[in-house]
């Protein structure tokens, strides 16, 4: 099985990398950009159920205070 886990800062938690990217893009002349946010993706392959991936997120991949996670199945 193949899962995709997306980890991002929670709403209300500053995303400095997104902000810096926004600034840099505007400096490069992309004036239309209004907001940038970032996230991290983990693509996990192996024998694991959704519950296990949930547990991976809670145990390791995301910090429950500052980050949200989303799990998506990519392949059976």
């Amino acid at each position: 099985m193949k899962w995709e886990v997306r980890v991002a800062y929670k709403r209300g938690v500053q995303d400095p990398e997104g902000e810096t990217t926004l600034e840099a893009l505007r400096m490069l002349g992309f004036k239309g950009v209004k907001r940038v946010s970032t996230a991290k993706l983990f693509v996990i392959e192996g024998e694991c159920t959704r519950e296990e991936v949930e547990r991976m997120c809670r145990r390791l991949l995301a910090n429950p205070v500052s980050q949200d996670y989303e799990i998506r199945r990519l392949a059976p």
Partner: protein
Amino acid sequence: MKPGEVRILVLRSAGTNCDAETASAIAELGARAEVVHVNRFIRGRRSLEEFHGMVLPGGFSYGDRIRSGAVLAKLLSHRLRRELQRFVDEGRPILGICNGFQVLVESGLLPFGEVGQVKLALAKNASARFEARWVYLLKCSATPFTGKLPRVSRMPVANAEGRVVFPPGEEQSLLEELEESSQIVLRYCTREGEPARGDYPANPCGSFADIAGLASPEGTILGMMPHPERAFYRYMYPDWTRDSALGMGDGCAIFEGMLEHILKSQG
């Protein structure tokens, strides 16, 4: 007990890199510091029981991949849970410096001393950069570690993820709770000792409430972003050439406090 009998564990893992200078700071004060790899404990070759106190030094444990300190923290809370909880419950002091602070937060040892209960985060610095600079610290409460620290002290930070984040929506209540139990130990401040109020670069990481260091309710666990081992002697300061007094630096007090606490509690 004599100072020479105090045994401090400097715990390392892959990517720890401030262990040598940290151990040497402790040794300068006459105690015995031993740098041991976490695998030795996991494989049962060594035991935390052998030590009176523990330091989690700075560095990039496991490359700070996923999140700073996360992998080592989860390894500790998963594979050494009982031993570690006992260490804490017996009141043996633990000092986490920089990456060590991150480990303490990610393992749940801070702020409430409960392994596995993550209540805080140390997120990417507001500047989105690695920040290597000297800061001023305001002592906000006395713990065993900070008894001898002056009200305003100086030490360097060097990290990319040192921004203390409280759970969104619960910031104020948690802050009050921690303040009440004197757990907020160090805050970033100005040269004059005024709170940094989030200003960069006085608060170099953008930490909530200018928090630079936190303790457990009993005060026996301290996590701090700045590096006391790099402010151990005055000659380590960036501006020591401007005055002639070359003696101990502020960082020394943190280790002294830890050792004295051990000596006192061990009788």
